[in-house]
């Protein structure tokens, strides 16, 4: 078993190397001179040349690449052109926001998605089944950012039920501890007995989580349904029924446990997508996460920030996929390495 994990981890290295290489060379293809961009249009040619030398931009590309590689392994992604802060700390500051949103979103998707899929499968060909599956198809056909806008329009502006953005009520003075606001809210509750921080954080995260979670919910529902249908056809389900078990037990115990395996893979992959693709949702809800930061970096042509951000996200994505694969083999009693 550990051999398998080690093997996969080893294979990870060329992939990560590939990611770093691609990101680096893409950025170097980008039009425009980073040094000039940093100094502005008024800069003198000498100042630009000096900065280029300081940044090592006058070296041949391969040398630059190796230098970059060396820095990356030390987790030094350079400094953001916009803020002059180390890129790594910018990333770390914003990571928790994205993670928290992704986790809440995936919980919503998983719970409701699996429920919908199981019920659909157990009542195949009924109106409920067709309705749910059509709904799921509509869900994956919707642009996420549009859904977010509609949610805001209906629930925030018209019904005034939810705030339109941000992570925490503006008027609440709050110093984060873990930077996971829901967690921090609970900590405050234990310390001061006041739920207001927790409730405000919850209040702010619900709408974006629903927006982010809708498409994965639809996908999870569809996969759960087809997996369940496959399982319900199996002989051991017939055996279970012949033992006199209640239908509920047959479906939720015998069938679901078997059908769950491929669903887990999908959940993991969707979680990865959430982390990486939250850009759109974060933009609309003004959620101060990684996606939003990366996007403004792209607009500002902040090359080191873009490189660092893209790499971190891609690597996290790859690691999550690996974790999902490992989890799958762990849970499948038929595969033992």
């Amino acid at each position, binding site marked *: 078993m550990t051999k398998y994990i080690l093997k996969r981890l080893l294979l990870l290295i060329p992939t990560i190397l590939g990611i770093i290489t691609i990101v680096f060379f893409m950025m170097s293809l980008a039009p425009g001179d980073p040094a000039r961009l940093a100094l502005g249009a008024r800069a003198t040619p000498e100042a630009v040349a000096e900065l280029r030398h300081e940044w090592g931009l006058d070296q041949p590309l391969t040398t630059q690449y190796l230098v970059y590689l060396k820095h990356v392994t030390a987790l030094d992604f350079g400094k953001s052109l916009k803020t002059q802060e180390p890129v790594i700390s910018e990333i770390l500051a914003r990571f928790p926001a994205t993670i928290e949103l992704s986790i809440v979103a995936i919980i919503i998707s998983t719970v409701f998605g699996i429920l919908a899929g199981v019920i659909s499968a157990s009542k195949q060909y009924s109106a409920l089944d067709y309705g749910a599956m059509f709904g799921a198809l509509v869900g994956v056909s919707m642009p996420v950012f549009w859904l977010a806008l509609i949610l805001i329009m209906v629930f925030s502006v018209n019904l005034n039920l939810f705030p339109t953005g941000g992570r925490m009520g503006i008027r609440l003075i709050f110093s984060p501890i873990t930077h996971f606001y829901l967690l921090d809210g609970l900590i405050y509750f234990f310390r001061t007995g006041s739920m207001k921080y927790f409730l405000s954080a919850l209040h702010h995260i619900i709408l974006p989580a629903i927006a982010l979670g809708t498409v994965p919910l639809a996908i999870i529902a569809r996969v759960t349904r087809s997996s369940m249908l496959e399982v319900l056809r199996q002989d051991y389900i017939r055996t279970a029924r*012949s*033992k006199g*078990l209640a239908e509920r037990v047959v479906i939720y115990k015998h069938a679901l446990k078997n059908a769950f395996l491929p669903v887990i893979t999908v959940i993991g992959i969707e979680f990865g997508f959430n982390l990486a693709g939250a850009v759109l949702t974060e933009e609309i809800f003004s959620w101060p996460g990684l996606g939003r930061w990366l996007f403004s970096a792209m607009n500002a042509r902040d090359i080191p920030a873009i490189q660092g951000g893209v790499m971190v996200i891609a690597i996290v994505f790859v690691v999550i996929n690996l974790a999902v694969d490992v989890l799958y083999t762990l849970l499948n*009693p038929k595969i033992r390495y």
Partner: protein
Amino acid sequence: MSEAIDVNVAGRKTNTVLQMENLRTFFYTQKGVVKAVNDVSLRIEKGKTLALVGESGCGKSVTSLSIMRLISKPGRIESGRILFEGEDLLAYSDRRMRSIRGNRISMIFQEPMTSLNPVFRVGEQIVEVFLTHEKIKKSEAYERAVELLKMVGIPAPEKRITSYPHELSGGMRQRVMIAMALASPDPGLMIADEPTTALDVTIQAQILQLMNELQQRVKMSLLLITHDMGVVAETADHVVVMYAGKKVEEADINDIFEHPQHPYTVGLLNSIPANEKYRGRDRLEAIPGVVPNLLKLHNGCPFENRCVYARDICRREFPERRVIGENHEVYCHFADQLDFS
């Protein structure tokens, strides 16, 4: 007229554990109606083994699933009665039927490889039956499960009880299924649907022997479904032969082998390599032709297109029941006129 009142002595009726009367189970498919079980009646006596014989597709499996009421869409039990210890199962509520399944009537299936749930341990699957039907503690259920495993001949049952199905061989899995079917304080009827077909020949013999032994010990009745007359010879007390959804002959075990009256039954017997008549010969006699398309049956005898004795009337009318001996009846227009020697 229900077949319950027939040549048998009235007193024997109380020894009947299952009585099926005129069962019809149809499947409504997109291409038409398949009459999988078309007016079949049979009786199983307490402590005895009834063998239900026929080729694949003749309706024997559907018959057994109908008894358990495990027929799902697009199939439906159309009409008939299935009396289990005097009460009609077809009139039971779902809830009551569930209390019967696994408890008084249990079933073992053909494919031991796929009939056990791969993600649960074997012990848990047996214990589940206990816990569903009785109010006993889990620890007691596990103890009884170990006893059952021992009874079905699984070595080191205390260790095996925590195994997953894929860790056991085909023969062992089938033993586990038998144990699961016995997991009840009062097993009444066991239905075994081709229990040995998917197993090696040597294991087959072991499983059959096991079932015989258990039947003696536990005093349960057995409905054995098979296409193999050799298996029938080893285990059955009474035999019902089915073809294309209809019963064509029924007799006690000796009669069926020594005095078969239906051409199909004769054909089946001829296909056993161990049959006496093949001594010295090296060719098996197969029944020519194929099973008719169940969607396009005519109203006569379904065996007509393969029967060497068939006449016009065989295509027009399905034969009436003819009693030709003690516990022996046949459905053929020319019963006891044909010489099969």
